[in-house]
C-alpha cells in the first residue's frame, strides 16, 4: 500500500508523458496525408509531377494557379470545362433540402412513436430500426424505375410516373428516404427521454399533439436535431453512390463529388487540378465539422452508446 503510494507521482508523470507521445505520434501520421494534399494544391503542375510535396520545405514555391483554373475554368484543361463552381452550387442545392426535410419528417415520426403510443408502436419502432440494415444498393434500381415509370398493378396505375429523374427532386427524395431509419432512431432516443411531467402538463392545459410538437418537442430537441443535421449534412455532401445513380454527371444537377470522381478517372492529365478541386470540396464539410463538432460527437454518441 505505502509502496504504491510512493510510486504514484512518478508513474503518473511517466504514463501521461508516454501517453501524450503516442497520441501525438499517431496524430501526426494521421494528418500528414491531408497536409500533403493541402501543400500540393498550391504547387505548380511541373513541380507536382517532378518532386514530392515535402520538397516545398527546401524550395518554397507556391502558386494559386490550380485554384484559379479549377474555379474559373481553364482553356488548356478541357476536363475542368467551365470550372467546378456550378457543381459546388449543385452540392449546396442538393444538400439543404436533403437535410431539412428528413429532419422534420423523422422528428414527427419519432414524436408519434414515443408519445402518441398505439398498439404496436414499439414493434413499428423496432422495425424501422431494423430497416437501417437494408443496403442502399438494394433500392437504387426499383427507385429509378419508380421515378421514370411509376408503379402499376396490371393496367391500374398505382403511382403515376413522377418524372423527377434528372431533377434535384430526384436526388432529394432518395436522400430523404435513406435517412429515415437512422434519423427516426436517433431522434426517438432523445424525444422519448423528454420529461413526462412537462408533456402531461401541456396536454392538461388543453394543448393538442400538434401544438405540443411545435412548441415543446421541437424547441427541446434542438441538440439532437443539430446532431443529426450535421450527420446528414456530411452524408449528403460526401455521398457518391446516390449522386452517380440519380444525377447523371451533368453540370445541371451533379454535385462536386461526382465531378471529382470523374476527374480522378482522367487524372493523368490534370493532377494539379484534382488537388485544388478536392480541397475546395473538403473545405466546406471541414468548416461545418470544426465549428459544430460538439453536436456531431453528441449525435454519434446517442447512436451507439447508451
Amino acid at each position, binding site marked *: 500500500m505505502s509502496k504504491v503510494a510512493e510510486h504514484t507521482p512518478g508513474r503518473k508523470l511517466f504514463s501521461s508523458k508516454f*501517453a501524450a507521445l503516442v497520441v501525438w505520434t499517431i496524430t501526426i501520421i494521421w494528418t500528414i496525408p491531408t497536409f500533403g494534399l493541402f501543400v500540393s494544391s498550391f504547387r505548380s503542375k511541373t513541380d507536382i509531377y517532378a518532386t514530392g510535396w515535402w520538397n516545398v520545405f527546401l524550395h518554397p514555391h507556391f502558386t494559386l494557379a490550380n485554384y484559379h483554373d479549377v474555379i474559373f475554368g481553364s482553356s488548356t484543361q478541357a476536363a475542368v470545362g467551365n470550372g467546378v463552381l456550378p457543381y459546388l452550387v449543385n452540392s449546396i442545392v442538393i444538400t439543404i433540402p436533403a437535410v431539412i426535410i428528413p429532419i422534420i419528417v423523422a422528428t414527427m*415520426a419519432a414524436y408519434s412513436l414515443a408519445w402518441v403510443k398505439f398498439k404496436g408502436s414499439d414493434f413499428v419502432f423496432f422495425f424501422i430500426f431494423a430497416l437501417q440494415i437494408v443496403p442502399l444498393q438494394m433500392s437504387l434500381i426499383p427507385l429509378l424505375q419508380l421515378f421514370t415509370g411509376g408503379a402499376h398493378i396490371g393496367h391500374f396505375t398505382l403511382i403515376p410516373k413522377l418524372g423527377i429523374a434528372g431533377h434535384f427532386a430526384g436526388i432529394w427524395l432518395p436522400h430523404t428516404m435513406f435517412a429515415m*431509419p437512422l434519423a427516426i432512431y436517433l431522434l426517438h432516443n432523445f424525444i422519448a427521454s423528454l420529461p413526462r411531467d412537462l408533456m402531461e402538463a401541456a396536454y392538461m392545459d388543453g394543448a393538442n399533439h400538434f401544438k405540443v410538437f411545435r412548441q415543446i418537442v421541437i424547441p427541446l430537441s434542438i441538440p439532437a436535431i443539430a446532431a443529426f443535421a450535421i450527420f446528414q449534412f456530411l452524408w449528403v455532401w460526401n455521398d457518391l453512390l446516390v449522386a452517380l*445513380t440519380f444525377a447523371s454527371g451533368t453540370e445541371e444537377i451533379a454535385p462536386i463529388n461526382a465531378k471529382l470522381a470523374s476527374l480522378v478517372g482522367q487524372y493523368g492529365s490534370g493532377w494539379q487540378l484534382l488537388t485544388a478541386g*478536392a480541397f475546395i470540396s473538403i473545405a466546406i464539410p471541414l468548416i*461545418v*465539422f470544426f465549428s459544430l463538432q460538439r453536436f456531431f460527437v453528441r449525435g454519434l454518441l446517442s447512436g*451507439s452508446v447508451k
Partner: protein
Amino acid sequence: MNNLLSTAGPKFAQVLIAVFGFLAIMAVIFWIAGRANGRKVKPIANIVFLGPAAILLILGLIVPAFQTIAFSFKGEDSKSWVGFANYHWIFTDPDMRQVLFNTFLWILIVPIFVTFLGLLLAVFMDRMKRESLPKSLLFMPMAISFVGASIIWRFVYNYSNPYQPQVGLLSAIVKGLGGHPQNWLLDKPLNTFLLMLIFIWVQTGFGMVILSAAIKAVPSDIVEASALDGAYGFRLFRYITFPAVRSTFIVVLATQVVGALKIFDVVRTMTGGNFGTNVLANEMYAQIFVQFNQGKGAALAIVLFLLVIPVLLFNMRNLRLERSER
C-alpha cells in the same frame, strides 16, 4: 461568371420552393388535423405524424427490398425466371471467389484495427492533458468524403520510375529506407490492404471518440479506489476500464463490420475493383450499372443483406436490453 449567376439563381429558388413548400403543406395539415376532437384525436395524430415517414420508408426501402428479392431470381433483363442461377454464380465463379475472399478480409481486419487503435488512443488520451487538438485532428478524416480521401491517398501511393524522384510519400519512404518502391495499387494482394488502410484512416477517429466518451463515463471514484488498491497502467485497464467500456467496444466493432461489409467508394475510386481488389458492394454496382445484369446485381445485394442480419440481431438484442433497463 455571369453564366454561373444566371443558372445558380433558379437553382436556389428551387431550394426555397422545396423547403418552404414542404413547411407550408405541413402547417396546413397540422391546422386541419388539430381541429379534430373526441376519440379520433389519437389516430389522426398518428396518421399525420407517422404517415410521411411510412410512405417514404415503404416506397424507398420496403417495396424495393421485396422487388430486389424477386429480381435476384430473374435473368439480366429481370423478365425470365432463372431460379438460383445467380446465387450459384456468386458461390462458384472463380472471380467471385476472389470477391468473397476480399470482403471476408475486409470484415476480419478493418473492425479489429479500428476498434483496437481507437481504444488505444482513447485510453492514452484519457491520461494526457490538452487532448482536444489531437482529438479533432484524428477525427477530421470522418468529415472528408471517400472521393476526397482517395485523392489524398493517391499522393501517398503514387509510384514513378525508380530512377526518378518519387512523388508518392510511401514510395519515397521505402526508397529512403533503401527499399524498392513499386506500383503499390497493382500489387496483389498488398493493394487490398492498402485500400483497407484508407478506410481505417477514416474510421479510427470514430472509434476513438466513442470509446473516449465511454471511458470518461467510468465513475472516477471507482478508478481512484482501484488505484489505491494498487491497480495501475495495464492492470487498471484490464480489470477496471475495459470491463466498463466493453459493451461500447462491441458496438463500435459491430458498426465497423457493417461498414467494411458495405465498402464501396474507396474501392470504386482507387482501383475500380481491378487488380484483385474487388469487393461485394463494388461488384454489385458493376453488375447493375456497368454490365447491366440486374439479376446478378440483385442477388449480390441479397447476399450482402443476409450477411448483415446477424449484426442486426445482435444490435436489436442490445437495444432491447437497454430499453428494459430504463
